[in-house]
């Protein structure tokens, strides 16, 4: 065992010789030599049958505990109704069934686990055994043998000689996966201009998302934040989720003199302005409004927009302002859109 000292002398020609004095030609005993496997030390259980008996009882006890755990699991499953809530300190109000099933299952499993490990550690032989390793690579003879087999096989196939077969085979193999790629075409429609348009169009009434009633200018107080959606869009609609994902609107009323951006003021109505609720970063709905600063914050990635200044980005990862919807008031005194958004809402994309 002492002829090999780790990686001391094991230096191949790929590496310069190892540092240190271990490669000297004078044969001196190496003070750092590998001492070899230390003699095996016996445990109490190996020499004292009483201790071994004790270990046996502990292991059997743990396996027994596991059986009790499983029985307890079944009992809890039968006893506790699925909707029973109990108070357990310090967890608070928890589902009695979930709590009891989880813990009894844990006892059933841990009993087996701890028992098996204790068995292995105290009663099974812990004598360390040495096994030899073998290099992964073949010796020269085998390598040459395989090389000859390969050459014979390749020659018999004529692969190298009959170039026409080889070339056409490569071509065929390269083309055939295309069939699979083509099949993926119907995974979805082409984008076309779908991301450019929303449900908003000229004359569409703004509906308050919370009350489901048309929004009137007098409903919008200075400093409040209101969410709106286009008239006609119902939660039960087949495409409700897709439409609301683009059309969701955020309405605030600013004092007209607070609005710094002239176009913003023109596109609003008496200081009421409507912006897309969908963040221009990656599309989260924006929902946190600071009425004093007129900032809105996206709770997902903290992009912050200044609603008094054309919703420009003042902080965070968003790349461009929130699109504004041009609004006015119709004959009934309801807020209406004067058209669709001028630019696509939501995250930016290549064709934008």
């Amino acid at each position, binding site marked *: 065992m002492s002829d090999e*000292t780790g990686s001391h002398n094991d230096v191949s020609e*790929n590496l310069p010789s190892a540092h240190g004095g271990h490669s000297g030609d004078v044969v001196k005993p190496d003070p750092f030599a590998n001492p070899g496997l230390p003699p095996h030390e016996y445990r109490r259980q190996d020499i004292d049958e009483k201790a071994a008996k004790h270990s046996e009882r502990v292991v059997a006890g743990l396996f027994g505990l596991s059986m009790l755990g499983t029985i307890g699991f079944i009992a809890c499953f039968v006893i506790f109704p699925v909707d029973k809530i109990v108070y357990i300190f310090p967890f608070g109000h928890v589902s009695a069934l979930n709590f009891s099933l989880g813990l009894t299952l844990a006892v059933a499993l841990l009993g087996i686990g701890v028992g098996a490990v204790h068995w292995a550690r105290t009663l099974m032989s812990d004598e360390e055994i040495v096994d030899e390793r073998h290099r992964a690579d073949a010796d020269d003879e085998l390598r040459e043998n395989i090389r000859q087999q390969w050459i014979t096989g390749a020659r018999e196939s004529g692969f190298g000689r009959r170039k026409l077969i080889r070339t056409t085979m490569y071509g065929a193999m390269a083309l055939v996966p295309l069939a699979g790629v083509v099949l993926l075409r119907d995974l979805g429609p082409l984008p076309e201009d779908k991301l450019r348009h929303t449900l908003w169009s000229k004359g569409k009434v703004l509906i308050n998302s919370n009350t489901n009633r048309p929004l009137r200018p007098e409903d919008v107080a200075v400093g409040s934040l209101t969410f709106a959606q286009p008239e006609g869009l119902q939660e039960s609609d087949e495409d409700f989720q897709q439409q609301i994902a683009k059309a969701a609107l955020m309405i605030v009323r600013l004092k007209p003199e607070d609005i710094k951006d002239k176009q913003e003021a023109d596109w609003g109505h008496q200081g009421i302005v409507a912006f897309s609720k969908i963040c221009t970063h990656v599309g989260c709905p924006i929902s946190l409004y600071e009425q004093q600063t007129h900032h809105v914050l996206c709770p997902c990635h903290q992009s912050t927009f200044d609603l008094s200044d054309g919703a420009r980005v003042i902080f965070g990862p968003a790349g461009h302002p929130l699109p504004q919807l041009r609004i006015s008031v119709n004959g009934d005194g309801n807020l209406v859109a004067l058209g669709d958004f001028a630019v696509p809402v939501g995250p930016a994309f290549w064709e934008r």
Partner: protein
Amino acid sequence: MSTTTESPSRRQATHPGERIAEWTDGRLGLYKLAKSNLRKIFPDHWSFMLGEVCLYSFVILILTGVYLTLFFHPSMSEVVYHGPYAPLQGVRMSDAYASTMHISFEVRGGLLVRQIHHWAALIFIAGMIVHMMRVFFTGGFRKPREINWLFGWTLLFLGMFTGFTGYSLPDDLLSGTGVRFMEGAILSTPLIGTYLSMFLFGGEFPGHDFVSRFYSVHILLLPGLMAGLLTAHLILIFYHKHTQFPGAGKTEKNVVGTPLLPIYTAKAGGFFFLVFGVISAIAAMVTINPIWTMGPYRPDQVSTGAQPDWYMGFSEGLIRVMPGWEIRAWGHTLVLGVFIPLMIFPLVLMAIAVYPFVESWITGDKREHHILDRPRNRPVRTGFGVAWLTLYFVLLIGGGNDIWATHFHLSINAITWFVRIGFFVLPVLTYWITKRICLGLQRRDRDKVLHGRETGIIKRLPHGEFIEVHEPLSQQQLHVLTAHAQPRPIDLGPEFDENGVARKTSPVAKLQARMSRNFYGENSAIPKPTAEEFEEITAGHGHH
């Protein structure tokens, strides 16, 4: 081959188990397989169980996952909720969400299995990262194990996507927000972003398809690939035999430990039940992903403090701290503010994947290694690993910048700027610090070898001098502290040959030599004590 009858001298199998074995051996060659494996030797070290944690949590995931498929409806058709959970009465939701509610509130034990499944997923991926770091810092990835390193890395990579597709299935408000984030990120891809998004979601986001599509990816495609990789990973561990730390009797040519039958079977088999038991207890006591408090997904609603599962926090950090760069030209938009983070995410993971090949190229080391390194003896590698982890954790902070801000009353702007600067500075800093610590530990090892262990016993000599008693190390300790090789860096030789003509060296070779100097040079290694030094000191001083 002629037909052979069994030799008459062959002992008749008597035990039924033995007869089954005989039967199988006659058909599958069971005994030949068992010959080298039944008493296979496995070295013992606590860190070798990290991989086992991953293996067992994967098995638990399969078991609980199959159970969940019996009750879950991977459908986005709309239903109105009329179940026992009062706050959601009459609320519209997808069938996926409703069936998850059903599992949580009406199926007995359903909530427990859901929670075991989710906890096991978190532990699975955490286990893989810690296991990977163990292999990394001890150099366990070196020849002949590079391929197994890649298998393991791919398992981690696929595991993250399996986790993401899995927690998106209930279609709740939190996971839906995560899917929206993913869609926004896909849209940023130049040229094909909108096409990818339309094809993935079957039309506009969110559409009616992604739950069923994620479902087949989550329960069939990814676990299938992972089961294959996992099997290959285990076969290679058996084939290569496990690595071992330096120690008495341990060499590059042997493996020292206890046999598969019985010790390892009992310990590893028992450990499966330990992992399962602990996860069950956690699932009983700690609620995870309470989808009923979040509500069903609607694209126009969101909750504050939205966080992905922890392993996605790293990509979340990238996306949060990146400045919102957008380049608009010729009617097109290049969304760098989203696309760069989307690309850095796999690149950072790739950096660690290819490391074994980079290191082997730098050092020119093509030998087999079965004795593990002590991390201090390879300061550059250890420093790189710590720098990589630092990057990971800095971005994790960035991913939770809102949580950090509210819990520690910090400015979110300040945290974001800290992460932006830290992304570049902290890995360099931690690399440097780690290297210094490694060198310090090497000095300490050298000192211990030459002067022995400090015992803390102070002795006063007759002439009044105080000395501390140093105890010489045992032969095993001496060996362990000096067992590592200290190769010299690659030397390109003199710049000019003996005739004064400049030698041609390719820039690649120059780079390799430079990196090699960095890796093995004087700044990365404290020369370990030589036998001469050791003898001089131990002979000269006698014992203290």
